[in-house]
Protein backbone atom coordinates (compact mmCIF):
# COMPACT_ATOMS: atom_id res chain seq x y z
CA UNK A 1 0.00 0.00 0.00
CA UNK A 2 1.77 3.07 -1.20
CA UNK A 3 0.59 6.49 0.03
CA UNK A 4 -0.68 7.25 -3.49
CA UNK A 5 -2.88 4.16 -3.46
CA UNK A 6 -4.34 5.05 -0.06
CA UNK A 7 -5.04 8.59 -1.26
CA UNK A 8 -6.62 7.20 -4.43
CA UNK A 9 -8.89 4.89 -2.43
CA UNK A 10 -9.98 7.72 -0.13
CA UNK A 11 -10.74 10.11 -3.00
CA UNK A 12 -12.44 7.40 -5.10
CA UNK A 13 -14.65 6.43 -2.14
CA UNK A 14 -15.49 10.10 -1.59
CA UNK A 15 -16.52 10.56 -5.23
CA UNK A 16 -18.60 7.37 -5.32
CA UNK A 17 -20.33 8.29 -2.05
CA UNK A 18 -21.04 11.75 -3.46
CA UNK A 19 -22.52 10.26 -6.63
CA UNK A 20 -24.69 7.86 -4.60
CA UNK A 21 -25.83 10.76 -2.45
CA UNK A 22 -26.76 12.65 -5.63
CA UNK A 23 -29.10 9.78 -6.50
CA UNK A 24 -30.55 9.23 -3.04
CA UNK A 25 -31.18 12.84 -1.99
CA UNK A 26 -34.72 13.98 -2.67
CA UNK A 27 -34.04 17.71 -2.59
CA UNK A 28 -32.19 19.24 -5.57
CA UNK A 29 -30.04 21.51 -3.42
CA UNK A 30 -28.70 18.46 -1.54
CA UNK A 31 -28.00 16.77 -4.89
CA UNK A 32 -26.09 19.88 -6.02
CA UNK A 33 -23.94 19.88 -2.87
CA UNK A 34 -23.23 16.14 -3.37
CA UNK A 35 -22.15 16.90 -6.93
CA UNK A 36 -19.73 19.54 -5.60
CA UNK A 37 -18.21 16.85 -3.34
CA UNK A 38 -17.74 14.61 -6.41
CA UNK A 39 -16.09 17.42 -8.36
CA UNK A 40 -13.67 18.33 -5.57
CA UNK A 41 -12.75 14.65 -5.14
CA UNK A 42 -12.11 14.40 -8.88
CA UNK A 43 -9.89 17.49 -8.70
CA UNK A 44 -7.92 15.71 -5.98
CA UNK A 45 -7.58 12.68 -8.27
CA UNK A 46 -6.30 14.90 -11.08
CA UNK A 47 -3.69 16.33 -8.69
CA UNK A 48 -2.76 12.78 -7.73
CA UNK A 49 -2.20 11.98 -11.41
CA UNK A 50 0.00 15.05 -11.81
CA UNK A 51 -2.48 16.98 -13.95
CA UNK A 52 -2.49 20.15 -11.89
CA UNK A 53 -3.80 22.40 -14.68
CA UNK A 54 -6.89 20.23 -15.16
CA UNK A 55 -7.36 20.13 -11.38
CA UNK A 56 -7.30 23.92 -11.17
CA UNK A 57 -9.72 24.26 -14.09
CA UNK A 58 -11.99 21.64 -12.50
CA UNK A 59 -12.16 23.58 -9.24
CA UNK A 60 -12.55 27.00 -10.85
CA UNK A 61 -14.94 26.24 -13.71
CA UNK A 62 -16.88 23.21 -12.46
CA UNK A 63 -16.85 23.65 -8.70
CA UNK A 64 -16.99 27.42 -8.99
CA UNK A 65 -18.86 28.69 -12.00
CA UNK A 66 -21.13 25.85 -13.16
CA UNK A 67 -22.23 24.70 -9.71
CA UNK A 68 -22.88 28.27 -8.59
CA UNK A 69 -25.11 28.58 -11.66
CA UNK A 70 -26.97 25.40 -10.63
CA UNK A 71 -27.40 26.49 -7.02
CA UNK A 72 -28.51 29.93 -8.20
CA UNK A 73 -31.20 28.43 -10.44
CA UNK A 74 -32.38 26.05 -7.70
CA UNK A 75 -32.70 28.98 -5.29
CA UNK A 76 -34.33 31.18 -7.95
CA UNK A 77 -37.00 28.60 -8.79
CA UNK A 78 -37.46 27.67 -5.13
CA UNK A 79 -37.29 24.00 -6.11
CA UNK A 80 -38.87 21.68 -3.57
CA UNK A 81 -38.44 17.97 -2.97
CA UNK A 82 -39.05 15.62 -5.86
CA UNK A 83 -42.38 13.90 -6.25
CA UNK A 84 -42.47 10.29 -7.37
CA UNK A 85 -45.38 8.69 -9.19
CA UNK A 86 -45.94 5.01 -9.98
CA UNK A 87 -44.43 5.55 -13.40
CA UNK A 88 -41.19 6.92 -11.94
CA UNK A 89 -40.91 3.90 -9.62
CA UNK A 90 -41.23 1.73 -12.74
CA UNK A 91 -38.34 3.68 -14.30
CA UNK A 92 -36.29 2.93 -11.19
CA UNK A 93 -37.05 -0.80 -11.32
CA UNK A 94 -35.96 -1.03 -14.95
CA UNK A 95 -33.22 1.58 -14.87
CA UNK A 96 -31.14 0.60 -11.84
CA UNK A 97 -30.37 -3.00 -12.98
CA UNK A 98 -29.70 -1.78 -16.51
CA UNK A 99 -27.36 0.93 -15.22
CA UNK A 100 -25.50 -1.58 -13.05
CA UNK A 101 -25.25 -3.92 -16.05
CA UNK A 102 -23.85 -1.07 -18.18
CA UNK A 103 -21.23 -0.31 -15.53
CA UNK A 104 -20.32 -3.98 -15.31
CA UNK A 105 -19.92 -4.31 -19.06
CA UNK A 106 -17.73 -1.21 -19.32
CA UNK A 107 -15.58 -2.26 -16.37
CA UNK A 108 -15.23 -5.82 -17.72
CA UNK A 109 -14.22 -4.56 -21.16
CA UNK A 110 -11.61 -2.28 -19.61
CA UNK A 111 -10.27 -4.97 -17.32
CA UNK A 112 -9.91 -7.36 -20.26
CA UNK A 113 -8.42 -4.98 -22.81
CA UNK A 114 -6.14 -2.76 -20.73
CA UNK A 115 -4.80 -5.36 -18.35
CA UNK A 116 -1.20 -4.35 -18.88
CA UNK A 117 -1.56 -0.58 -18.87
CA UNK A 118 1.22 1.52 -17.46
CA UNK A 119 1.15 3.24 -14.12
CA UNK A 120 0.24 6.87 -13.86
CA UNK A 121 1.23 9.74 -11.65
CA UNK A 122 4.85 9.75 -12.68
CA UNK A 123 6.92 12.75 -11.68
CA UNK A 124 8.52 12.66 -15.14
CA UNK A 125 6.02 15.18 -16.49
CA UNK A 126 7.01 17.93 -14.12
CA UNK A 127 5.70 21.09 -15.79
CA UNK A 128 2.91 20.04 -18.13
CA UNK A 129 1.00 23.33 -17.93
CA UNK A 130 3.49 25.01 -20.25
CA UNK A 131 3.24 22.09 -22.66
CA UNK A 132 -0.57 22.14 -22.48
CA UNK A 133 -0.68 25.84 -23.26
CA UNK A 134 1.65 25.34 -26.21
CA UNK A 135 -0.58 22.53 -27.48
CA UNK A 136 -3.75 24.62 -27.09
CA UNK A 137 -2.36 27.65 -28.89
CA UNK A 138 -0.39 25.76 -31.57
CA UNK A 139 -1.76 22.31 -32.35
CA UNK A 140 -5.36 22.89 -31.27
CA UNK A 141 -5.70 26.55 -32.13
CA UNK A 142 -8.65 26.08 -34.52
CA UNK A 143 -10.74 24.00 -32.08
CA UNK A 144 -9.85 26.56 -29.42
CA UNK A 145 -11.14 29.43 -31.53
CA UNK A 146 -14.21 27.34 -32.33
CA UNK A 147 -14.95 26.97 -28.59
CA UNK A 148 -14.94 30.75 -28.22
CA UNK A 149 -17.53 30.86 -30.99
CA UNK A 150 -19.52 28.17 -29.17
CA UNK A 151 -19.48 30.24 -25.98
CA UNK A 152 -20.66 33.28 -27.93
CA UNK A 153 -23.58 31.28 -29.35
CA UNK A 154 -24.39 29.95 -25.87
CA UNK A 155 -24.44 33.47 -24.43
CA UNK A 156 -26.76 34.64 -27.21
CA UNK A 157 -28.99 31.60 -26.72
CA UNK A 158 -29.22 32.18 -22.97
CA UNK A 159 -30.11 35.84 -23.52
CA UNK A 160 -32.78 34.96 -26.11
CA UNK A 161 -34.27 32.33 -23.79
CA UNK A 162 -34.22 34.54 -20.72
CA UNK A 163 -35.68 37.61 -22.44
CA UNK A 164 -39.30 37.42 -21.36
CA UNK A 165 -41.66 38.88 -23.92
CA UNK A 166 -44.88 40.10 -22.40
CA UNK A 167 -47.79 39.58 -24.76
Amino acid at each position, binding site marked *: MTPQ*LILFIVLAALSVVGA*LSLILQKHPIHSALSLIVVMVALAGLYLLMGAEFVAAVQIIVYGGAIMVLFVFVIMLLNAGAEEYTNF*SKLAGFAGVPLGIALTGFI*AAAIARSAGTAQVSGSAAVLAPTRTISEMIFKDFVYPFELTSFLILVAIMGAIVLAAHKEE
Partner: protein
Amino acid sequence: MVPVNYYVILSAVLFGLGVIAFVVKRNIISIFMSIELMLNAVNLAFVAFSQGMGKLDGQVFVLFVIVVAAAEAAVGLGIIILIARNRQSLNVERVDLLKL
Protein backbone atom coordinates in the same frame (compact mmCIF):
# COMPACT_ATOMS: atom_id res chain seq x y z
CA MET B 1 1.81 4.52 -8.10
CA VAL B 2 -1.75 3.76 -9.05
CA PRO B 3 -2.50 1.74 -12.21
CA VAL B 4 -4.46 3.46 -14.97
CA ASN B 5 -7.03 0.66 -14.79
CA TYR B 6 -8.19 1.80 -11.36
CA TYR B 7 -8.90 5.30 -12.60
CA VAL B 8 -10.75 4.04 -15.67
CA ILE B 9 -12.86 1.61 -13.64
CA LEU B 10 -13.71 4.44 -11.22
CA SER B 11 -14.69 6.49 -14.24
CA ALA B 12 -16.95 3.66 -15.47
CA VAL B 13 -18.59 3.41 -12.03
CA LEU B 14 -19.20 7.16 -11.90
CA PHE B 15 -20.62 7.09 -15.43
CA GLY B 16 -22.95 4.22 -14.47
CA LEU B 17 -24.11 6.14 -11.40
CA GLY B 18 -24.76 9.12 -13.65
CA VAL B 19 -26.85 6.97 -16.00
CA ILE B 20 -28.85 5.59 -13.06
CA ALA B 21 -29.41 9.09 -11.73
CA PHE B 22 -30.51 10.22 -15.19
CA VAL B 23 -33.12 7.45 -15.32
CA VAL B 24 -34.31 7.56 -11.72
CA LYS B 25 -34.45 11.29 -10.96
CA ARG B 26 -37.67 13.16 -11.70
CA ASN B 27 -36.56 16.72 -11.04
CA ILE B 28 -35.34 18.36 -14.23
CA ILE B 29 -32.46 20.12 -12.43
CA SER B 30 -31.31 16.82 -10.88
CA ILE B 31 -31.40 15.19 -14.33
CA PHE B 32 -29.25 18.01 -15.63
CA MET B 33 -26.79 17.49 -12.77
CA SER B 34 -26.54 13.78 -13.59
CA ILE B 35 -25.46 14.78 -17.11
CA GLU B 36 -22.70 16.84 -15.52
CA LEU B 37 -21.70 13.79 -13.46
CA MET B 38 -21.38 11.72 -16.64
CA LEU B 39 -19.25 14.41 -18.27
CA ASN B 40 -17.00 14.41 -15.20
CA ALA B 41 -16.60 10.64 -15.42
CA VAL B 42 -15.54 10.94 -19.06
CA ASN B 43 -13.06 13.66 -18.13
CA LEU B 44 -11.51 11.35 -15.54
CA ALA B 45 -11.04 8.66 -18.19
CA PHE B 46 -9.48 11.22 -20.55
CA VAL B 47 -6.93 12.36 -17.96
CA ALA B 48 -6.16 8.79 -16.87
CA PHE B 49 -5.43 7.67 -20.44
CA SER B 50 -3.45 10.83 -21.12
CA GLN B 51 -1.21 10.18 -18.11
CA GLY B 52 -1.00 6.47 -18.88
CA MET B 53 0.16 7.05 -22.46
CA GLY B 54 2.44 9.94 -21.56
CA LYS B 55 0.72 12.32 -23.97
CA LEU B 56 -1.05 15.52 -23.05
CA ASP B 57 -3.73 15.49 -25.78
CA GLY B 58 -6.26 14.07 -23.32
CA GLN B 59 -5.88 17.02 -20.97
CA VAL B 60 -6.52 19.45 -23.84
CA PHE B 61 -9.67 17.49 -24.71
CA VAL B 62 -10.77 17.77 -21.07
CA LEU B 63 -10.51 21.53 -21.40
CA PHE B 64 -12.78 21.44 -24.44
CA VAL B 65 -15.25 19.15 -22.67
CA ILE B 66 -15.39 21.61 -19.77
CA VAL B 67 -16.06 24.48 -22.19
CA VAL B 68 -18.89 22.52 -23.83
CA ALA B 69 -20.30 21.67 -20.39
CA ALA B 70 -20.27 25.34 -19.41
CA ALA B 71 -22.09 26.35 -22.61
CA GLU B 72 -24.56 23.51 -22.11
CA ALA B 73 -25.22 24.57 -18.51
CA ALA B 74 -25.88 28.17 -19.56
CA VAL B 75 -28.38 27.25 -22.29
CA GLY B 76 -29.92 24.32 -20.39
CA LEU B 77 -30.57 26.32 -17.25
CA GLY B 78 -32.20 29.04 -19.37
CA ILE B 79 -34.52 26.40 -20.81
CA ILE B 80 -35.22 25.08 -17.30
CA ILE B 81 -36.19 28.55 -16.11
CA LEU B 82 -38.57 28.89 -19.08
CA ILE B 83 -40.12 25.47 -18.38
CA ALA B 84 -40.59 26.32 -14.70
CA ARG B 85 -42.15 29.63 -15.65
CA ASN B 86 -44.59 28.09 -18.13
CA ARG B 87 -45.50 24.89 -16.27
CA GLN B 88 -45.15 25.89 -12.60
CA SER B 89 -43.42 22.54 -12.03
CA LEU B 90 -39.96 21.02 -12.29
CA ASN B 91 -41.20 17.46 -12.66
CA VAL B 92 -40.32 16.03 -16.06
CA GLU B 93 -43.54 14.02 -16.13
CA ARG B 94 -45.50 17.28 -16.32
CA VAL B 95 -43.59 18.28 -19.45
CA ASP B 96 -45.39 16.00 -21.90
CA LEU B 97 -46.47 18.31 -24.68
CA LEU B 98 -44.96 16.06 -27.38
CA LYS B 99 -46.58 12.91 -25.94
CA LEU B 100 -49.66 11.46 -27.62
